[in-house]
C-alpha cells in the first residue's frame, strides 16, 4: 500500500507540473496581447504606464522559458498577483473564497453519497418495485436537466412560492448570498446560514447524485448475480449478511471510481451553481473574472482548481486501492 501511494504521488507531481505549465501557456502564449489584457482588459484602452508595469511584473518581454520559470517561482512563493478589478491580492481572495467552495462541496458530496448511493442500492435490491421505477425516472430526469435550469426551478419552488404564499418560516429558503455565514467546526451552518446553504448544495449534488444512484444500482445488480454471492448464501449466511458482507464492498467499487471521475464535471457545475446562488466561492469568482477579463484572478483561481483536482483524484485512487486488493497488489508487484 505504501509503495502504491508513493508511486501515485510521483505521478501526481508530474501531472501537476505539466497541467500548470499548459495552463500558463494557454493564457500567456496564445495570440492576444497579455499585457493589454492584464492591464485593463480587452477592448479598453489601458494606461500605457500600467501596461509597462504589467510587462515588467510578468516579464512579458522575456523569452518564454524565462517567463515560465518566473511563473513557477512566483507560484511556489504563493504570489498570484493582484486583481485588476479590485486591486486585492489574488491569494487573499483565494483564502476567502476557497473555504466557501469547500463547505458547499462537502455538503453536496454528502448528499451525493448518502442519497445517491442508498437510492441506487435500494432500487437494486428491490428491483422492479415502485421505489425502483420512481427512482429510475427521477434520476434520469436529474441527470438530464441543466444545472442553471434546476437552480431556477428550485429557487422558484422553495423560495419564491413560499414567500408569495406566506408559508411558515421553516419552509423558506434563500436564493442568494450566504446569510450570517457563520459555521461551527468549519462546515456546520449556524444562525440562518442553512437557509442559504440548502438550495445550492442540493443543486450541486443533484447531477452527481443521480449518476451515483444509477451507477450504484447497476453495479449492485451485477453483484447480486455474481457467483460469490451464491457461494456466500451456500455457506449458510442470512440474505442480509450476504448483502452486507459480500455485496456492498464489491458494488461500491464503480461508485468510488465514478465519484473521482465525476469531479471534473462537478467543477463546471460548481461554477454555474455558485453563480446562480451568488455563493462567492471559487466558481463564482472564476465566472466573474471571465466576465470582467480579470486575468490574474482567472489564472490564480484556475491554478488552484487544477491543484485541487489532481489531489482529489489522488485521494480517490488511494481509496480505490484500499477498497480493491487487486488494484493494490497489481501496483505493488508491477515494479
Amino acid at each position, binding site marked *: 500500500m505504501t509503495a502504491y501511494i508513493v508511486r501515485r504521488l510521483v505521478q501526481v507531481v508530474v501531472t501537476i507540473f505539466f497541467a500548470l505549465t499548459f495552463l500558463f501557456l494557454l493564457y500567456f502564449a496564445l495570440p492576444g496581447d497579455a499585457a493589454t489584457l492584464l492591464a485593463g482588459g480587452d477592448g479598453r484602452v489601458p494606461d500605457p504606464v500600467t501596461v509597462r508595469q504589467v510587462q515588467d511584473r510578468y516579464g512579458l518581454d522575456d523569452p518564454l522559458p524565462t517567463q515560465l520559470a518566473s511563473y513557477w517561482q512566483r507560484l511556489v512563493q504563493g504570489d498570484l498577483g493582484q486583481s485588476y478589478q479590485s486591486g486585492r491580492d489574488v491569494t487573499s481572495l483565494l483564502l476567502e473564497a476557497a473555504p466557501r467552495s469547500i463547505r458547499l462541496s462537502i455538503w453536496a458530496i454528502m448528499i451525493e453519497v448518502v442519497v445517491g448511493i442508498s437510492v441506487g442500492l435500494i432500487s437494486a435490491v428491490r428491483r422492479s418495485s415502485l421505489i425502483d421505477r420512481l427512482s429510475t425516472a427521477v434520476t434520469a430526469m436529474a441527470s438530464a436537466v441543466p444545472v442553471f435550469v434546476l437552480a431556477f426551478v428550485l429557487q422558484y419552488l422553495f423560495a419564491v412560492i413560499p414567500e408569495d404564499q406566506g408559508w411558515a418560516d421553516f419552509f423558506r429558503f434563500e436564493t442568494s448570498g450566504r446569510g450570517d455565514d457563520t459555521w461551527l467546526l468549519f462546515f456546520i451552518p449556524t444562525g440562518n446560514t442553512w437557509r442559504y446553504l440548502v438550495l445550492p448544495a442540493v443543486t450541486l449534488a443533484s447531477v452527481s447524485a443521480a449518476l451515483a444512484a444509477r451507477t450504484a444500482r447497476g453495479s449492485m445488480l451485477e453483484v447480486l*448475480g*455474481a*457467483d*460469490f454471492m*451464491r*457461494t*456466500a*448464501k*451456500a*455457506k*449458510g*449466511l*442470512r440474505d442480509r449478511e450476504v448483502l452486507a*458482507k*459480500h455485496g456492498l*464492498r*464489491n458494488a461500491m467499487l464503480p461508485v468510488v471510481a465514478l465519484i473521482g471521475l465525476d469531479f471534473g464535471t462537478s467543477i463546471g457545475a460548481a461554477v454555474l451553481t455558485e453563480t446562480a446562488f451568488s455563493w462567492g466561492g471559487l466558481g463564482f469568482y472564476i465566472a466573474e473574472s471571465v466576465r470582467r477579463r480579470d486575468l490574474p484572478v482567472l489564472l490564480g483561481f484556475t491554478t488552484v482548481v487544477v491543484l485541487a483536482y489532481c489531489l482529489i483524484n489522488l485521494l480517490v485512487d488511494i481509496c480505490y486501492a484500499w*477498497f*480493491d*486488493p*487487486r488494484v493494490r*497488489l497489481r501496483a505493488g508487484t508491477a515494479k
Partner: protein
Amino acid sequence: MSDPGLESPPYTEGEVLLSVRNLRTRFVTEGGDVPAVNGVSFAVRRGEVLSVVGESGSGKSVTAMSILGLLPPTARIEADQMLWRGESLLDAGEARIRQVRGAEIAMIFQDPLSALNPMHKVGRQIAEMILIHEPVSKKEAASRAVEMLNLVGIPQPAKRAGMYPHEFSGGMRQRAMIAMAIACSPDLLIADEPTTALDVTVQAQVLEMLLRLKDELNSALMLITHDLGVVAGISDRVMVMYAGRQVEVGTTDQVFYRTRHPYTRSLLRSLPRLDDRGTDALTPITGAPPSLLRLPSGCSFHPRCPLVKERCSKDVPDLNSGGLGHHPAACFYADEVSGDTASVVGGRS
C-alpha cells in the same frame, strides 16, 4: 409405488442421506415458464459417489441448487418429497435451511475464481464458514482455516491464507474452495463441475482429493459433470439427464457396460476410445438439445434418436418404460440399445 430413480439400484448399504422424489423446478420468465427440472427422483447414501451427467442445459445444476434453495427468486421449486436424513427440507424453516447449508450439505462450484469473493482473503472466506456454524472465536476459526488449507495440500498454508483468490492458481483456488466446503465436515458434498475450469493434470489431483476427503469425512459425494471419463473412474452410481428429465439410472457398470438408453450410448460414443489409434476418435452427438420452452412431443430425445420409432413422438417414456428386470431407463426400446460401449473407458474394476 414405482420410483425407480429413487429406489434402485442400491449400491451401498449406507444410510440414505438425501432422497428426492419427483422434483420439478421451473423458472418464471417473460417468454413463459422454463421447466428446467421435470420429475427427477434420486437418493444419495452415505459413502457413495453419485454422478449426474448430461449435456449443457440438461438441468444438472438446477437440480443441485433446488436442494439448497440457491436459485434466483424466479425459480419455482416443487417436489413430492425432499428428505434430508429423514427431515423434509420442503417444510423446514429458513433458519433450519441455513444450518443445513454449509454445515450438512456443502457445495463446490465450477469456477473457483468467480465463486470466491475477490475482496476477501482466502483464509477469511474459509474461517467465515466455520464462524457461521460453530461457536468458536475468530482466532480459532482463522487457525482452523489454515489447517484446512493444509489438509487440501496447499503449501505454506499460513501464508496462503493471507492472500487473495486472484493470487492463487486455478487448481489452488479449487482446493481452497474444497477446503471451505469441508470446513464444517458436511455429510454431503455437492460438486458442480469441480474440474471443468482446470488443467487435465490438475483435474485428476482434485478428483482424487475429493474422493479421499469423502472417505475421511464418511460423507457422500454428488458429482455433477459432463465428462463421462471422470465418471467412470470414480462413481458408484450414475444418473443421466436429458432436457430436465432422468433418462437412465444405474450403477456405473450398468450404465457403461449395459447401456439401456440411446442418449447415454451416444454420449459414450462421443468419447475418445482408448483402443482406437486416432481413427474417428470422436463421434459427436448429432443435433442440439431442445429448447425447454418448446420440448418435442413424446420422448424429448426423439428428434436426435437413432432408434426412433412411431410411438416415440406420441408417448412420454418414464424410467419404468425400459421394462422390468433391468436398471431403469426412460426408453420404450431399451432392449435394442446395444451395449458395445464397453471398450470406451476403463471403468472401475
